[in-house]
């Protein structure tokens, strides 16, 4: 080995300098990543969710479908009016309900209930659903999303976690273990 091939003091210091920066950078990357991913990680903790009241049962006459709104449990003061979320409540009989998400199962537009023809219709891409939430026609790949519910002391409670989206079916089911959303006719009281 000639003298010129031997790593000089400067070259070694340069390497150490680069490595030092890389190490500090990696250290700083951890909190930055945690910060960036906090909506995902925090969500999982909240996943079990709380029961949210939709109000007294009297608001929902048997055999009818009514619009209800609730404030999301994670709402903050700066959310303003977006803290409110709406859903369709169908009361079949006494304690038997179906609570549908407002969002069309196609791409999330707000569906409207037409009691005359017993259909939910979507204004965006023309999806339609029957009164039990099953798909009637149009582009939706499935029926309306359902929230699980229970009746307690004359109040209707639902479990509504995240905004229902076509891809989030698994997590929606997970958050509603007491009563599967597909069997909305079963009361969870």
């Amino acid at each position: 080995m000639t003298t010129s091939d031997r790593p000089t003091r400067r070259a070694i210091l340069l390497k150490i300098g680069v490595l030092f920066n890389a190490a500090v950078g990696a250290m700083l990357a951890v909190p930055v990543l945690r910060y960036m991913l906090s909506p995902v990680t925090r969500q999982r903790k909240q996943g079990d969710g709380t029961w949210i009241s939709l109000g007294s049962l009297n608001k929902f006459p048997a055999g009818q479908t009514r619009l209800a709104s609730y404030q999301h449990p994670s709402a903050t003061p700066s959310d303003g009016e977006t803290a409110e979320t709406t859903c369709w409540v169908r009361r079949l009989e006494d304690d038997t309900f179906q609570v549908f998400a407002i969002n069309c199962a196609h791409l999330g537009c707000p569906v409207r209930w037409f009691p005359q023809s017993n259909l939910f219709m979507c204004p965006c891409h023309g999806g339609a659903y029957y009164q039990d939430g099953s798909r009637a026609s149009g582009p939706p790949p499935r029926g309306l999303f359902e929230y699980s519910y229970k009746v307690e002391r004359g109040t209707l409670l639902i479990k509504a976690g995240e905004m229902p989206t076509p891809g989030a079916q698994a997590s929606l089911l997970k958050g509603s273990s007491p009563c599967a959303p597909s069997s909305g006719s079963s009361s969870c009281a």
Partner: protein
Amino acid sequence: MRALIRELVVRVIQRVGNWFEQRLQLTGTIKHTMAHPVPRRTASWFYVFGSAALTVFLLQLVTGILLAIVYVPSAGEAWSSLQALNTQISAGWFIRALHGWGSNFMLAIVAIHMVQVFLFGAHKYPRELTWIVGVFLLLMTLGMAFTGQVLRFDQDAYWGLGIGTSIVSRVPVLGPPLVSLLLGGPIIAAATLSRFFALHVFVIPGALIAFVGIHLLLVLKLGINEWPMPGRIVRRATYLQEYHELTERDGVPFVPGAIVKDLFFSAAILLSIAVCAFVLGPFGPGGQPDPTIIQTAPRPDFFFLWLYALLSLLPPSSETPILLIGPAIALIALIGLPFVAGQGEKSWRRRPIAVLTILLIAVGLGALTRLALHTPWSPVMDAWSGLPIPTKYLVGRSPLERQGALVFQSKQCRNCHSLGDTGGQRGPALDQVAVRLTQDQLIRQVIQGGGNMPAYGNNLSPPQTTALVAFLQTLHPIGQAPARDASQTELSKLGLGP
């Protein structure tokens, strides 16, 4: 005396200039850049779109900063701060209008610029990287348009976010976490607006400035694409030498040879934006972003209308794959283009496939946009109560048939089916339905639905169905008999019919 003062002023300016020059040493570079020769024929009206895009970008930066002085990026207050801009702050409406129309002009000019450089073969050697950087600039411009629409925090923005979220959620496995990342929480709320604000105001503009810088640097380093001549072939081995000779032999200095048309066009575009802003005003905001107001039909801005139509028309089975794979294929095609077609003919006269591709894309996007302006796929939500049945379909009808007409309206058939050219277009027009379907077929269609029509079996009593079908059977042109089942006629001749 006056001459003395003038000489003094000139001397002071010179000394100040020299002071800066000694430190910055930029004069040489600037003079060199301004005087660099460009091929004479590129001093053309076809070569003005890039500089116009830069001008509009600068306008967007300035108006964006002006808006940020007043805009409140909070879900609870954004909408009212936009109202304040529109109504309370002097010329606030005009700055909003400039920014909004600037956005539309920007997208249009970027699209035209891209078509022009593609048809003139500017993506070929050695300008491949310029093209690729340009593709990213296009993506960022679209990103700015979408995030900007979200900052105009109204009903369309709120539900538009819902649509974007639903698309993202369809990504396999990663969908739900991506949705949380996009929304910043479980629902569309304050956290969502804050992150779109950060994207629109810091992240994407920062990247845009960097990429515009690289794009311009590449144009200066490699020289502007020469005017393509049919038969002048691009070869890696010889191109640089040929281009150098061309600029030496038949070049003009960029300033003032070529920049004059750029200056005039940029000013004309700025003026057009200002006129549009002044005459047509700002965009929205529409209704309040209140999720409890569901009487809304959200629509995207003009440049995303084609996507809105596509999402309505794709068959459900192929929708997710096309939504997820389509953009990836488009991106790969755009980035791969200069590597696949990096040499050869530049002139569009000798590149029929290139011209046909542009025409196909233009016709496709144009047709989808046009459809999205009419939304034939959406039910007309108030047709059943707002549009009466044309009198000609009621005159001389029996009570049962008129009862059927009532059922037709009250069961909202009209929302999807038109009569006399009014009503929904989701399903077929029914003015001549009796010619197409027999009584049995009508009953079956009403009860069981099918062919994209809901089944009404659970929703109509037998008398209602009878009346409705009786009415539908009257819908045929005068003098043309309704469709009938031939076998039934034969059976009734034999005395076996119903």
